[in-house]
């Protein structure tokens, strides 16, 4: 149970501080001794608690319950003033797993042998509250042939209009402010993946915990740790974060290192660094194998491969607002370092041990953005270049390698342009990118050596304050270092799309106003190279045109991941 908490301030003597510490220390020493001298195991039972799915000892045995110390206020709690958050009727311990103590909030109630003592609660400067935020998109669509609408992109970051798929995030966030200098935030974000129950009829739901971190700010320095989507600016039309998009478990720190004061052009420089890990559940990074149990019968799992990808990032952001107005520039320098240790795994296909050498990579990128500060109008240019393992999305594993089975020689270079312009009843969103990806394989021809790019434009007309209609046109192409089967031509796959999207936007007019409730029709025209990407058993190897007629909604509000 998560409830708002109110810290208690009290006067305390040295004895008051020492006694609880002694209690805790005594308990700890006792538990430690217990853990070091377990009772003899029976022959049929493992001496240690049976490992859980990950091989870690069961929590109950490894984490003895800590003694609970309850501090009891000696004076009645004053009634909340108008506007204040009412004090909850709950134990004052921050350990929500501790049992409730009847009357714990009643003056004069003590526990155990602890002497009753007087605690005076200081006036609280704390402000805290919960927030709920969400991002989501849900569609139902037909291909006008009796099937469901289907994505048609052939590039990594094609237009989202048909391909983005259903997805939602539910964010629960705790915001605290203890003083003007000290603030905190705890964020938990659940991501929901399709299919949803009303579509599949299955009461199973793929849920991922994405954000799960705590953040604190002291003065201007912000620190965080946990699991976090740690991102820069996205290109909405492509559903893509072209410069920085970290999804790690780790931590970071950031602060404005310069901020101009006074009238005129304002400057602000922000420095952020982060380090995190990913250990994908893939034999490339992590593997557990069963071995004969050392005691008794059966098997136990041991970790054969454990090599997280460690990523360090540094980001320097410069804001410039000429004349101190709302318009300005944002410039970013960004870099990443990636490391993977060496390891050995059992090839799941052949049951043969295979070595994985250590690997590394780096990325360097930059961004320059101009924004008007009005109606989300902006233009942005991003460039980045990556080498080695950094050329690969950290949420995926490489599938091709150099001769030494590293990703040395792999590279990714990309340039992306995006923007939005809004004026009166009209807006235009646009985006384009080119990307050059080369794997490290020694072969000249490979599906992992390609150039690709996309250009997409979405003009909209606002019909009154709440309605509008958008049209979208795009072209995308991927050129692979492969021959198109049956021809002497290089395999070039291109898709042209045209779409129209009337919508209702209850939050008002604007390219980025949400929610939107939409009707959507998109036609995709697929060339022979695109069709050649699919196995002959797939109708996509035959169809030149694809339809997508659907109804859906997209929303975002109050989400820290989608500010």
């Amino acid at each position, binding site marked *: 149970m998560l409830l708002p908490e109110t810290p208690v301030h009290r006067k305390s003597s040295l004895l008051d501080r020492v006694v609880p510490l002694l209690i805790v220390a005594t308990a700890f020493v006792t538990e430690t001794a217990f853990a070091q001298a377990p009772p003899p195991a029976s022959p049929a039972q493992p001496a240690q608690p049976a490992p859980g799915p990950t091989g870690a000892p069961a929590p109950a045995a490894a984490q003895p319950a800590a003694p609970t110390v309850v501090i009891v206020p000696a004076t009645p709690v004053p009634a909340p003033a108008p506007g204040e958050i009412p004090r909850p009727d709950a134990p004052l311990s921050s350990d929500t797993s501790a049992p409730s103590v009847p009357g714990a909030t009643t003056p004069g109630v003590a526990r155990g042998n602890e002497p009753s003592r007087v605690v005076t609660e200081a006036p609280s400067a704390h402000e805290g509250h919960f927030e709920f935020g969400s991002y989501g998109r849900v569609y139902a669509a037909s291909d006008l042939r009796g099937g469901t609408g289907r994505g048609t992109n052939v590039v990594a970051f094609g237009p989202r209009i048909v391909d983005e798929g259903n997805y939602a995030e539910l964010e629960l966030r705790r915001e605290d402010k203890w003083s003007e200098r000290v603030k905190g935030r705890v964020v938990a974000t659940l991501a929901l993946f399709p299919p949803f129950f009303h579509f599949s009829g299955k009461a199973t739901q793929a849920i991922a915990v994405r954000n799960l971190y705590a953040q604190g700010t002291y003065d201007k320095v912000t620190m965080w740790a946990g699991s976090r989507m740690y991102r820069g600016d996205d290109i909405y039309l492509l559903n893509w974060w072209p410069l920085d998009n970290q999804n790690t478990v780790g931590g970071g720190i950031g602060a404005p290192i310069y901020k*101009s004061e006074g009238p005129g052009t304002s*400057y602000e420089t922000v420095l952020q660094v982060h380090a995190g890990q990913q250990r994908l559940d893939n034999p490339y990074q992590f593997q557990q194998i069963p071995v004969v149990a050392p005691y008794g019968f059966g098997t136990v799992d041991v970790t054969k491969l454990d090599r997280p990808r460690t990523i360090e990032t540094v980001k320097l952001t410069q804001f410039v607002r000429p004349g101190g107005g709302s318009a300005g520039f944002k410039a970013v320098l960004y870099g990443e370092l990636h490391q993977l240790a060496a390891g050995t795994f059992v090839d799941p296909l052949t049951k043969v041990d295979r070595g994985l050498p250590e690997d590394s990579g780096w990325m360097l990128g930059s961004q320059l953005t101009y924004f008007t500060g009005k109606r989300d109008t902006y233009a942005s240019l991003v460039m980045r270049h990556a080498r080695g393992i950094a050329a690969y999305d950290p949420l995926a594993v490489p599938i091709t390698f150099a001769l030494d089975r590293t990703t040395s020689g792999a590279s990714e270079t990309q340039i992306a342009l995006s923007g939005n312009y809004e004026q009166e009843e009209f807006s235009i969103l646009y985006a384009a990118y080119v990307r050059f990806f080369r794997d490290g394989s020694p072969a000249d021809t490979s599906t992992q050596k390609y150039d690709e790019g996309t250009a997409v434009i979405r003009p909209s007309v606002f019909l009154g304050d709440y309605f509008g209609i958008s049209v979208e046109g795009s072209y995308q192409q991927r050129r692979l270092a492969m021959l198109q089967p049956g021809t002497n031509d290089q395999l070039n796959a291109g898709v042209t799309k045209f779409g129209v999207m009337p919508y209702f936007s209850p939050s008002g007019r604007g390219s980025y106003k949400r929610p939107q409730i939409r009707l959507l029709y998109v036609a995709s025209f697929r060339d022979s190279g695109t069709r050649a990407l699919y196995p002959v058993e797939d109708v996509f190897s035959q169809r030149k045109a694809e339809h997508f007629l659907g109804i859906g909604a997209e929303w975002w509000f109050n989400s820290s991941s989608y500010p």
Partner: protein
Amino acid sequence: MKAMQSKSSRVVMAMLVAGACALPEIGCVTVPNEGKQPAIATHVDDWRDEVIYQVLVDRFANGDPNNDYKVRPGYLARFQGGDWQGLIDHLDYIKELGVTTLWISPVVKNVETDADVDSYHGYWAQDLTQTNPHFGDLAQLRKLTAAAHDMQLKVVLDIVTNHMGQVFYYDMNLNGNPDIYIGGSGPLQGAGSKSDIVRITEYDPDWDPRGVQAFTSLGNAGRAPVIFIQDPSINRVPPKGILGTARAYHGFGRILNYDDEKQRLIGDFPGGLKDVATELPEVRAELIDLYTRWAEVADLDGFRIDTVKHVEYEFWTEFATAVRARLAPQGKSKFLMFGEAFDGNDKLLGSYTQPGMLDSVFYFSQHFQVFRDIFQNAHDENAQKGTDQIQKLWADRVVNYNTQPQPGGTGIAPAKSLVNFMDNHDVSRFLFEALGDKEALRNALTLLMTEEGIPCVYYGTEQELAGGNDPSNREVLWTTGFDTTNETFRHLSKLARLRAKYISLRRGDTNVVYATPHVKAEDDAGIVAYERAGGDAGDQYALVVINTNARHQSTTADGAKAMKITKPGVTLVDVLDPESKTYAVPANGELRIIVPAQRAMILVPQEQLKP
């Protein structure tokens, strides 16, 4: 403020520099020209000038780890990881060895695995239109042939027309499942019971002259339906086109008696490899079209054709004629087609070289009668045969093999261009049978490289690999480190250089001037000598003398009978000898030479000596 503006400028400048750093990486991806359709051409002058090097691609060199799907190092019945890129990477090794033509194992997509054995060898075809991704894609195959041609190496492709991989089963019990039945109900002699074991597998049932039969508890139920298997996980799916239909197969079950011509021609090849109905015009057309296409798209120089004795003669006439007719107008002539008939019957081998058929065959009779009986058995005087067996076998060339070039073929009569080999992937390696006798190996190589015809060396011979029967004879080569300094490598390389240098060793006719039935203590035991001269070699001359005896030196004479050559009065130089010893031939042509045990001489006239 000014300072901060300057700071901002520096930041922006740094960003631009970073962006500019990325620019040199930008460049359009392309398929290299060598990977595109080549301008096909004739790369061969005279196939007798060539030395074929047989490569099992999976075992030669691993040049690209990204096609190492299901590789299990050390388990020779499974994939090991070799590929065409590995071959490309080691063409200099092949060149240094002195061989001139690569015979590569089949390139087409296979059924991946069967009964826990992999199709690393390539003989379990499933799709004749696609490359086997274990070895590379079409561009890489083209790159291999282009790189080989650039180094004056030719490429011969191994193909199979007799059968496909195990793509279907016979539903003998009509239950729609591929079953293996083991049971017993027959009489057990003397025990008064019925319990003898019967094993029936619907994957690979025994030959039945009526065609594989279905059965029920009441007896036979007619021909068993052919059911194609749908198992994409191992690429066991129906082939494309007519080869994906039941009528393209004979359906008589596994060959039990190879001497029964009907079984041999229409029976399934052991291992469940389904016999193709090659007599059907549409099947023939498909096979001709699909295989000729490989020569066209990859600029190949020839076919080595598997299991020719399991296909009717008419097919070979039509196949060979059609391939030649289709390639010649495109500029590719002298396209070598040689067949493999795993048989010691010399007449049978020769029958596939009848007019209009194949240019050559794998000289299996020689493998048995010469390399096995004489060279491999050198360690055992009771098993070793006399060299007169060589003389007799070679004399039959003009009897059993076509002595006229095939119309539109290589321009060389089959009798003069048989593909000579000591061992290959279907028999245990020479050293295995020779009990590791490397002297015997090198001696046999001398005969192989100096006799009439086209020598063919199985990969790894030069590294003295000694594996037993399949798959032990299919070792990975890369564990040898591609050593070019060992004695056998250097010997073979020297023989190849001599063969290239002296046209007499390549194109001369053969005249056996000494052979003997003696294999024991006799003075001439194990001696064979033959001249290579005349014919297409003009006046060029070479005399090869080999002592196949492992126990003592021998001489080219037996008492009063001495070797008599056709070059009296000349001085011959032993070009194989590092000291280049000379031998004066008397006016009567009689030459008595002492040859140490398991040694040989290649003698050329002093005036024809080449630097």
